[in-house]
């Protein structure tokens, strides 16, 4: 039974989603929902919405209660800061509602708010999946695929035209030539797959705060790319003076010390790409996060690696430089030299959590 409340609930959820969209920037930078992801849904805390009325405030308010207790004994907590100073009606009230939103919807919101263009995948022609769809009819086939209704109709038609049909005793007997069978067509659908490589500098100069930034940013990048491609494969690489491929969990938790040789990470990345993701078939994304403090003599090797191997085969190479109290931050300057020659090289400086928002926009705003 369709109930009249369903419409109201639907509308209410719509309004809540509107709230999420309005505050998406806040959610992006605070990363508070990342811990709450389920497989398909994230639940996002949203301040309750209600209809304002003229009401009494807390000051001077009170009531009557029942029970033990001396004068002066507290019976309940107030609601914190009273309004008046803040923005009208925008304070979180006593209720917080959780809105459940699918990852896809969240990605759409992200795209809308950041004005991200949809990605034009490459490799459309090279990778195809075949599917059989039972959409047509033919005259021969196995009995299991016999189309009863069509067969019956043809038999009926034939009998009526031949005047074999007895209205008193309506028996229809199909003959061999009346039979019709379901048949399939093979449809090829282009499939576009994406591989994302995350590279992070875990040398001593990267602090936990910076890793947090990387974590939040890669969450949103993931969310967006997953929406854009059917299948997204992720690989994680950490490096200091030497590089390793690690799993996701380790990626965000490892802390090592020592020097920094970025070229080692590029080498591992290239291995992974040639091994698992032939660039002709895959849309490959590479996101590198570092504090930009590379071992001086290594820079040249890095640039060479980028120009000859990596950049030509990647959809995007994004370098995000987080600000570090220790690092010199030279590396981004080195990369800028390449910036003009390759339009799939994107550089972004992320100096605080607030900058994540713009950085995502820079990275994904190209539509590649």
């Amino acid at each position, binding site marked *: 039974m369709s*109930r*009249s*409340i369903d*419409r*109201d*609930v*639907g*509308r*209410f*959820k*719509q*309004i809540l989603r509107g709230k999420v969209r309005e505050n998406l920037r806040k959610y992006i930078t605070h990363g508070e929902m990342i811990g709450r992801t389920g497989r398909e849904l994230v639940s996002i805390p949203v301040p309750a*919405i*209600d*209809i*304002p*009325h*003229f*009401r*009494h*405030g*807390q*000051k*001077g*308010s*009170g*009531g*009557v*209660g*029942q*029970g*033990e*207790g*001396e*004068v*002066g*004994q*507290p*019976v*309940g*907590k*107030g609601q*914190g800061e*009273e*309004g*008046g100073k*803040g*923005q*009208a*009606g*925008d*304070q979180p009230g006593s*209720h917080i*509602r959780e809105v459940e939103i699918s990852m896809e919807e969240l990605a759409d919101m992200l795209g809308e708010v950041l004005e991200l263009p949809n990605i034009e995948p490459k490799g459309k022609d090279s990778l195809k999946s075949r599917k059989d769809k039972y959409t047509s009819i033919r005259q021969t086939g196995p009995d299991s695929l016999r189309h009863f209704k069509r067969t019956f109709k043809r038999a009926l038609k034939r009998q009526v035209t031949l005047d074999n049909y007895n209205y008193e005793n309506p028996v229809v007997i199909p003959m061999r030539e009346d039979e019709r069978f379901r048949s399939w067509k093979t449809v090829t659908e282009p499939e576009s797959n994406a591989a994302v490589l995350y590279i992070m500098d875990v040398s001593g100069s990267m602090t936990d705060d910076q890793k947090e930034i990387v974590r939040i940013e890669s969450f949103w990048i993931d969310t967006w790319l997953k929406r854009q491609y059917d299948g997204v494969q992720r690989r994680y690489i950490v490096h200091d003076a030497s590089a390793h491929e690690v799993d996701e969990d380790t990626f965000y938790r490892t802390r090592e010390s020592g020097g920094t040789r970025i070229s080692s990470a590029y080498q591992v990345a290239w291995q992974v790409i040639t091994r698992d993701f032939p660039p002709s078939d895959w849309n490959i994304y590479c996101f590198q996060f570092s504090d930009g403090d590379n071992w001086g003599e290594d820079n040249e090797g890095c640039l060479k690696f980028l120009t000859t191997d990596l950049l030509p085969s990647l959809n995007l190479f994004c370098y995000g430089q987080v600000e570090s109290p220790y690092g010199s931050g030279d590396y981004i300057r080195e990369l800028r030299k390449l910036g003009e020659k390759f339009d799939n090289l994107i550089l972004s400086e992320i100096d605080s959590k607030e900058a994540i928002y713009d950085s995502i926009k820079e990275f994904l705003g190209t539509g590649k």
Partner: protein
Amino acid sequence: MTLTFSRQLPAEIRAAQDDIEERARSYGLDFFKTIFEVVDYEEMSMLAAFGGFPLRYPHWRFGAEYDELTKGYAYGLQKIYEMVINTDPCYAYLLHANAFLDQKLVIAHVYGHCDFFKNNAWFAPTNRKMLDEMANHAARINRYCDRHGAETVEEFIDACLSLEDLIDAHAPHIRRSPAPADERRPLDPKAEEKQYDLRFPSKGYMDSFINPPDVIERQAKERQQKQQQKEDNRSFPAEPVRDVLLFLLEHAPLKDWQRDVLAIVRDEAYYFAPQGQTKIMNEGWASYWHSTIMTRHGLTDAEVVDYADHHSGTMATSPHRLNPYKLGIELFRDIEERWNTGRFGPEYDACDDLHTKEKWQKDLGLGRDKIFEVRRIYNDVTFIDAFLTPEFCIKHKFFSFGYNDQSNYYEIVSREFPKIKQQLLDGLTNHGRPFIYVVDGNYKNRGELYLKHKYQGVELKLDYARDTLANLQRLWGRPVYIETIVDDKPTVLSFDGSQHESKQK
């Protein structure tokens, strides 16, 4: 869409209902025919979200309520056992998942409510055919949604709901002014234009003869004057008006559909008002009767423990929230006891020997009659005012508490009877909400609206006040003001459509 779920009541419950109904009548309860229906939790939540009705106009706030109720149920935080609405016949909904014992308890409880609805004076002016009326409202608003767009209508409803409690809850019982003419005009947008179209149809070259310019001008002037006069008559109101909604209906520049929507919101607010005015009495009365009927007749031996458990669950008290069920039932019992033993009147009041007072016994046996009388003519405020006694407060460990803005805690303020009573009455008067009046509908002679908050020691919640003011402005169209007290100083808040202002007076 069906208006009722019209499901056959299980035979067992049907039998229990007949039995309890007869018991209730034998005690003198007097109610409209009561129709019970068994619903599942989702239906119950929907009914509760709709204020007890199966059909309401479309609005997200019902959805929000429903969402909260179903989640609360799913997480085991709350459960609605029963729902009953004030109509003739009375409709009552039982939760399908209730145990049989609970169904009996609830049925007995419902008959208490039904008796109260029918006999309490504060319910007398309510529309007993509200079920149909609500459906009418829904149909009308749906039509406006189709015609003007759901969002436009929703926004307007939001604004109206923001003001919904600015009514004069006593108005149905008193005539404050001559009955206001129903200003709602027929829904024909052309009618007005036609009325003012003074020109006769004519060909261009004949126009100055058929419609002589000076005559047209004179007529236009007359019309303007007439309107001016109408405007002048609106220098109002003569006295501050509580029913802000009525004032808006009569004077705000609303379109016909908007006026109708506002009238609907106001109608429904008046319909629900008595339930707010008699919460303690109504629940107390119903609890008194479920307790009486169940403990004397309704229980089998096996059910006694469960009954006691559920009954005391309903009666549980907490330090910072007064339980209306508990206060109501205890006060009714106290009244019955006092009138049975004769502990009232000048003789009892004059006695200052505590010992004699404690043993006071006159065997009057007037208790039952008295509580029936009380349920007929009192509401919560007068009920507490007349029957709350110091002895009662001590027995039930009442205290008053207040907000301490230093510690951000509510703290116990007093255990003295006058203070407790005062606090209780403050909380009940006007539902504990601020008194707001329209003082001037033509403020500064510029058609601006000036409201006044009657300050009684508690200041307005400012963020809400600003938002509400903005909604009021949407209806009124011109700048709006409210005079109140902010940080102990008289202040006027205003909103002119784009900017909020706050000026000390």
